[in-house]
């Protein structure tokens, strides 16, 4: 069974089709990349998959269950997690607290123990903090464990979102342009992080403009243009597709 099945998915905003009749599958354990020029509908697709938008038509099944009308917070409990192209960082909190929010579903979040600061609750929270520090280390944010989110540079914030998404212990992780705005070295580091994540058995859907990264790590690639599927296949197939080259790669390379 596929981890994610998208069938006949459409989304329109005031008559404009951002996504039109799109179908594809994502297999468990794969790194699945979605490429396309700006405005191709990649972020809209992410918003549809994670329940932030409701589709105009079609449906999405995650792990066999339809996600139509399910709130994003429930989907997270099902094992879906993501990062954002235009950061959704909690700038009113410290870096590690950002990651700890990611672990929200796995901590003791009952009201009374929290209010009364019961010892068990405190102990579990300390453990959570240690795990989150490890996660920050894992994505290469070791130096920022004690930082405030508002004082971190852009590249670090991108990784902070990855750490937060990982803290939710997802089965499927959606990464929206994790390398945007990063320099080459940082991009390679992200590369490694994504590979390590996939190695743990987490399915990854990646939206990225950095073709070197996409071609290097993807098991499967979906190319979009104007909300429609342009091509699909492994990196070699997509690279060879003349339409993709014309619509996207041609313009870039």
């Amino acid at each position, binding site marked *: 069974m596929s981890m994610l099945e998208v069938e006949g998915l459409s989304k329109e905003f005031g008559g404009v089709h951002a996504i039109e009749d799109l179908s594809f599958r994502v297999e468990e354990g794969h790194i699945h990349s979605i490429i396309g020029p700006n405005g191709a509908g990649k972020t809209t697709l992410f918003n549809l998959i994670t329940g932030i938008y409701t589709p105009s038509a079609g449906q999405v099944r995650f792990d066999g269950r339809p996600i139509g009308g399910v709130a994003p917070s429930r989907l997270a409990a099902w094992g879906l997690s993501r990062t954002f192209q235009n950061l959704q960082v909690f700038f*009113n909190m410290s870096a590690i607290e950002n990651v700890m929010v990611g672990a929200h579903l796995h901590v003791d979040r009952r009201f009374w123990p*929290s209010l009364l600061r019961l010892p068990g609750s405190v102990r579990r929270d300390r453990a959570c903090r240690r795990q989150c520090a490890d996660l920050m280390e894992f994505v290469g944010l070791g130096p920022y464990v004690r930082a405030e989110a508002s004082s971190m540079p852009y590249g670090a914030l991108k990784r902070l979102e990855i750490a937060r998404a990982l803290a939710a212990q997802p089965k499927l992780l959606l990464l929206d342009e994790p390398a945007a705005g990063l320099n080459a070295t940082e991009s390679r580091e992200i590369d490694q992080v994504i590979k390590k994540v996939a190695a743990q058995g987490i399915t990854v859907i990646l939206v990225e403009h950095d073709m070197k990264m996409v071609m290097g790590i993807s098991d499967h690639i979906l190319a979009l243009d104007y909300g429609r599927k342009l091509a699909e296949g492994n990196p070699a197939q997509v690279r060879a597709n003349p339409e993709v080259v014309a619509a996207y790669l041609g313009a870039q390379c």
Partner: protein
Amino acid sequence: MAKLMNARSGGLALLALVMAVSPLGFTNAYYYDVAVGALFNAMICVGLNLLIGYGGQISLGHGAFFALGAYASAIGTSRWGLPPLAALGGGAVLVGLLAFVLARPILRLKGHYLAMATLGIGMIIYIVLKTEAQWTGGPDGMGVDPLALGGFVLATDRHWYWLAAMLLLVVVWLALNLVESPVGRALRAGHGAQIGAEVVGVDTSHYKVLMFVVSAVVASMVGSLFAHKNGFITPDIAGFHRSIELVTMVVLGGMASIYGSVLGAVLLTLLPQVLAGFDDYEAMIFGAIMMGTMIFLPKGLLPSLITQIRKRAGGRS
């Protein structure tokens, strides 16, 4: 040092110390009276800050919850003969339920729409309190008996001061616990980036509702105490002005700053007393101070102060 202000034990100890030492400067009972009012407001504002500062949700109607608590105690004790604590608890439960029922639909609203809705609810409660005179005594209000706890009557302002001081410590402690717990993190996350919080499993509206209820219950309980302490209440305490005053204390002290709320409440309670001699210029000065503070210290008194201190100490630490 700034870190000390944030640290729970340091801050609590300092607060306790200040409250313990302050009476040395109180030359008569009237000072205690004003101080008790300040501490009461501080408790409400700490609760309200959970909603406004940490949750990012404005409310222009919390004066009404305060008033409902006050009237619950007044009616419960004097008309039904309930023990004061039972009336206080009953009022808190009722207010909590009311807040819970109202919160879901209201908190879907954003920004000024939310402000309007909370204002409207406050006004409706105010009008009911004013109109149902057979229960509430109408616009001229009703008397309330002093607080008697198991035979001990809190009669003097001094007693009230120490009670209020202890309660404030408890309220601040609980608020700090909450803010630093997973519950508080979820709340703050919902304010910081709602969608970002949703996608990692935080049901943000649940936490907003929770804080709406918590802050309403705190206001209600303080209202009950206020009723006993003051001995006389009128529907004005549910009015628009009271609600605005509470929000102003929170914002002036510093949003998302528990100690800021205490500071804001204390200063704004004292200010009218200090300005009482300015006669016709009182309102102008009060308004100017409000504007000036928010223009020059937009983050509120305490956070701005801490930033200043950090900047100064920056080189050394």
